[in-house]
């Protein structure tokens, strides 16, 4: 099963490599990882999406907890939470598809952040399903390039956190 794990870590050099090393050293795969400072500049928050059965996830969370620089580990999967990802997608539509491209972008509340005579670059944010759907609809328009941020996630307010 896919899990979204939120990690509070010390904002120091080497921490990312420790976390990543923990996964690679055990043969666990990271599907996506995003990191950024929190309100406290000494602390960063990482959102990691990974796959595994219960035993693997239990090991991963215990091992993460054991890392000296990790302050807190929360598996968001089993609690109500909000997830977002952002993509930037560069489309090269044929002239007759340009209008359709803009229409699709609008459906997904995408924003055109750059355009040239032959391309549009669209920014779309949303949860995984929305992002996937947008990509599928835009694919026939001709995707030249695509970048994804990886997920960020946060628990909904009023939900009891399942700490580990």
């Amino acid at each position, binding site marked *: 099963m896919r899990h979204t794990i939120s990690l509070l*870590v*010390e904002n120091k*050099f*080497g921490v990312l*490599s*420790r976390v990543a*090393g923990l996964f690679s*050293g055990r043969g666990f795969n990271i599907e996506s990882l995003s990191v950024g400072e929190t309100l406290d500049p000494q602390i960063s928050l990482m959102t990691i999406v990974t796959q595994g059965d219960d*035993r693997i996830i*239990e*090991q991963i969370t*215990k*091992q993460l*907890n*054991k*890392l*000296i*620089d*990790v*302050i*807190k580990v929360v598996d968001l999967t089993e609690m109500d939470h909000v997830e977002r990802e952002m993509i930037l997608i560069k489309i090269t539509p044929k002239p007759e598809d340009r209008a359709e491209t803009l229409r699709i972008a609008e459906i997904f509340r995408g924003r055109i952040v750059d355009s040239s005579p032959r391309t549009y670059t669209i920014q779309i944010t949303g949860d995984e399903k929305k992002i996937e759907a947008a990509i599928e609809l835009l694919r026939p328009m001709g995707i030249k390039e695509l970048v994804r941020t990886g997920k960020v996630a946060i628990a909904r307010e009023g939900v009891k956190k399942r700490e580990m």
Partner: protein
Amino acid sequence: MKLTGAEIFIECLKKEKVDTIFGYPGGVVLNIFDLLYDDKDLRVILTRHEQGATHAADGYARASGKPGVVLVTSGPGATNTVTGIANAFMDSIPVIIFSGQVPTKLIGNDAFQEADIVGISRPCTKYNYLVKDIRDIASIIKEAFHIATSGRPGPVLVDLPKDVTAGKSEFIYPEEINIRSYNPTYAGNRWQIKQAAVAIAKARKPVIYAGGGVILSNASEELIWLAEHTQIPVAMTLMGLGGFPGDDSLSLGMLGMHGSYYANMAIHNSDLIIAIGARFDDRVTGRVEGFAPDAKIIHIDIDPTSIRKNVRVDIPIVGDVKLVLKDLNEILKDEVKEQWSEIRKAWLKQIDEWKRERPLTYAWDEDIIKPQFVIEKIYELTKGDAIITTEVGQNQMWTAQFYKFHKPRTLLSSGGLGTMGYGFPAAIGAQIAFPDKLVIDIAGDGSIQMNIQELATAVIHKLKIKVAILNNQYLGMVRQWQELFFRERYSYSYLHTEQVPDFVKVAEAYGAVGLRAKKPSEVEPVIKEALRIKNTVFMDFFVDWREKVFPMVPAGGAIHEMIFGEETKQPEKKLKAVK
């Protein structure tokens, strides 16, 4: 007053009550070595290889319970410590490694003798640091000692760039440290401990499975009390040997791949396993699916990641083994001991039968030295009162089987990593920690050649280490596997008779003493002579190269699926039983 980084380094070590450093100099650490030149309180043991220094610090730590300290230079000096670091990491040994580093402004530039040792050692240290600012030296060193020695212990590396040790700063040693993300759990959960006590009371066929954690947390007394009071037999891992007296009637000796028949049978047939400071290593469990099918499992360990990693656990208790056992014993103490004897009678009788059925034995031979015989003789002549280190291979397993360890910290052996070349430098560390104790390294002819250069270190420091080389001219354990599982194709496991050096001459070349035994009758006189000599001694025993370690659980087998040697099928002249 302002001190240089090197001076701060030295002051910090003194604050941590360090008196011995195992090390090797080089360009970027000369600032520090220069101060050590005439420091009265800090002794430097100059080894001949940085791997030797790291294993020596590790042996020092295992024998004494104090952290071991290593100081090496950048680049090759640092990378040479990696095997020693990984070795300490796998066996949870507190070692602090200080490596020199090129000046901060050169880091990342492929400078001369630069290596990213912080990156290289990250997966095999409990934690590591690159000190980028001289103002951080003191607090980092304090943290390093704290992290290495607390919780589940382990190696910590501190990389010290040259400009940091050369610069000047105010010296303030922090009173306290606070690492917000590091809070090991020491006290076990009361409710879980109660559950464990209930399970122990209910069990009919319980076995204690004791590991290195018992020794690391100095919990031997508590373990002995528990076993004696509740009459539960104790099987030990290699790392756990000595945690419970090997000559006690409740001792089952070692379990696992080369464990005793009776230890493995007891575990396999048990209805309750009390795992204490042990991590269900694959060498212990055999095929996990076949491990102790009817047993409930209680698992006590300070490291939560050890629990449920390899086997299902019914009662997990995270905490320091000593504290948890104290609490458990407190609950159990009201039950009368006699009552336990009654409950356990049938089970202990069954175990005695297993012990009689297949004791640890070997076939005696008049003409050729059996390696097990050498170890038995060493045990007999030392009465078990020695610190024994081992190398890796058959020598290690025979030592575990045929030497009975009475006390904790008397067996120093590379358990997790299985590092050939560990035993001799570890013996040096142990002898440095205890100059008056008898320290013996039981070695194979392959392994001893991996760090043989440390003879110089031993001789210079007038160490009286005895090295018993079980010389079979083969990488014996490899040969054994090839014989059993590779149709006797001895691919590159034969060391060639003429290429095994004359160990007597090697010893002499370094100023040590060399002795040799070629016949069984010479074994005892050689050991006695070695024990008499006040110098480092190599004892070169020409042993039967065909000998194999039995019993053995072949890879993929469950632990009761053991294979045995010929000798156990035909009890004859001199079958020796380990009681």
